[in-house]
């Protein structure tokens, strides 16, 4: 296990714990999604895992190190991409990466190669203040990879990005996973989580309410539906039938038997629908 969390609690001093006794493990090379709406405790958990917040109660191990005693050398092994693009606006993209690369005690990636990889080669010598939001997000992602991390923490890496850039981020994460990097992804974008994650944990009000592969969650909590199109009196009709309901199963059998079916599609529930079913609340 590269991340091991046991009975983690975190409180900012309010009535309710921001993180309320969660436990989970992440295996090497896995993309683990931490999903939940704003205020669910996702970022707090990630901040504890990355040492930005202390472990108040419980046990947290990252890369084999107890986070209560982890030293600065841990940061040679992990990369953290923040939701808000926190970069030096008065430095150029290249200067930003060169500066951060110089802080590590291990061999780092070539800053220019990283900029090329994220499509910022031409803007390398421009000050970041002139970058668009998408460019800044790409630079933050590049920075989090500068030390060739073994564990990559991504906090809402696609927030506010256009669909093309979002797809580019998804491809980049897959590529790093294929290279053996473990990815801890915090997001409330269920589409991204569904496309990327080997396993996901649903977080609601500081607690993990479900944790499994996206497929298993959808099978367990989602309704199995079939959408059929058939002709009656020359008119095309469309019906959505649940395979869990006996009467609707019989209706489907009848349509098959009568030979009136024109199209038939099975429909899975989305992760978002599963989340709503499990928690009773929407993600946004």
């Amino acid at each position, binding site marked *: 296990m590269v991340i091991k969390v046991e009975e983690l609690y975190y409180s900012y001093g309010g009535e309710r714990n921001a993180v309320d006794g969660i436990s989970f493990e992440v295996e090497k090379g896995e993309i683990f999604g931490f999903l939940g709406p704003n205020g669910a405790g996702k970022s707090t958990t990630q901040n504890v895992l990355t040492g930005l917040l202390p472990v108040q109660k419980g046990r947290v191990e990252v890369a084999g190190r107890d986070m209560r005693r982890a030293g600065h050398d841990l940061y040679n092994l992990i990369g953290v991409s*923040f939701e808000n693009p926190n970069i030096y606006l008065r430095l150029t993209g290249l200067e930003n990466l060169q500066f951060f690369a110089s802080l590590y005690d291990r061999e780092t990636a070539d800053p220019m190669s990283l900029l090329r990889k994220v499509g910022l080669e031409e803007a390398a010598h421009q000050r970041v203040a002139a970058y668009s939001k998408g460019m800044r997000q790409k630079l933050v992602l590049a920075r989090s990879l500068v030390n060739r991390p073994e564990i990559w923490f991504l906090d809402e890496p696609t927030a506010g990005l256009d669909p093309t850039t979002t797809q580019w981020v998804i491809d980049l994460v897959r590529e790093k996973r294929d290279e053996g990097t473990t990815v801890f992804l915090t997001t409330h974008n269920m589409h991204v989580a569904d496309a990327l994650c080997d396993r996901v944990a649903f977080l609601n009000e500081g607690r993990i309410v479900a944790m499994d592969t996206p497929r298993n969650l959808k099978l367990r909590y989602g309704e199995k539906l079939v959408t059929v199109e058939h002709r009656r009196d020359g008119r095309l009709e469309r019906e959505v039938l649940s395979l869990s309901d006996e009467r609707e199963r019989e209706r489907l059998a009848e349509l098959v038997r009568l030979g009136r079916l024109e199209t038939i599609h099975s429909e899975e529930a989305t992760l978002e629908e599963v989340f709503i079913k499990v928690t009773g609340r929407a993600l946004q």
Partner: protein
Amino acid sequence: MVHRFLTLTAKDLRLIVRGHMLTVVVAVALIYVGLVNFVVPEDVIVKPTVVLWDQTTVQSVRRLFEAAVDGGAADAEIILVDTEAAFEEAMAVHGNRLGLRVEGGETPERVVVTYQGHENPEVRRLLEASLRQQLGPLRGEAPLTFATETLQPGTAPERPPFNLSLLPILIFTEAGMIGLLLAAALFYSEKTEGTLRAYRVTPGGLTEYLLAKSVAMGLLGLVSTTIVTLFTVGLDVNWPAILGVVFLSAVVVTLVTLVAANMFQTISQFLFTGVLLNLVLALPTVSYFLPGFAPVWLRWLPTYPMIFALREAYFPTGAEAVLTGAVGQILLTLVVVLPLAVLAFRRRLIARDV
């Protein structure tokens, strides 16, 4: 660690230049050069008080002075005494008083000018020439003898001109106190950008982070000091001492500033405390102008030794101990403040996840 410290310093210097802080510092330095060279006079004319003890029977000098004052020809206040004890007592009341003792029988034979000791040679020469001209004819053909005595010889045999005597204060103000505001501005720009948070998930520590900022501010202080010094007193000063004191002072003031700034989320929240801190740290300038005012608490302010070390470095009196003592006190402050700053940052950053 050294490599990280150097990288951090280089980054801070780059931000200082691109944030126009260097421009501000150079502009202020040039304004100071203009002030010292063209605005502030070399000597401030203060109406002197003359303690006159005319021992002659005809009191001709006394009458001459009284007539001059009454007629508006002499711009001085006269205190008349008639005993040695009264003379000494009157001279001791204020360090700005000059003594004039006229010796003789019926007519004046000898005039003794009594100085406090801090008057500069030019002022002395001017005064003596004026007295010779005014009092010389009183004795007719026989020459009047002139003598001088100094109450506290060696207190300031070569007192610098007034405009240059402001240099330690101006250097202290720019290198130290402007550093306070610029260090806060640099810190808050990183806080606002969130780059401090990004730094926290690297192997870089807080000691390097704080030292780099302080050293960058120290180097900025050297730039302004070099400009002001070069264009006012020139090359013939104790450069290593001046630059050393300025650098160490700026480092200490920056660290103190960062500890204070760390307690506030935004620069506007810090503003009141920043101004207050500025005022408190600038209090030793009072002692510079009024040496008699130097309570113990004031001497413990980290800026106190800075000002007096700068004065000794610019206008050496031979009191090496002032310089070495001050440097020692600044270094001691640094040794105490640095770990405190690291501790304060660690507690605050982790508690607030900055």
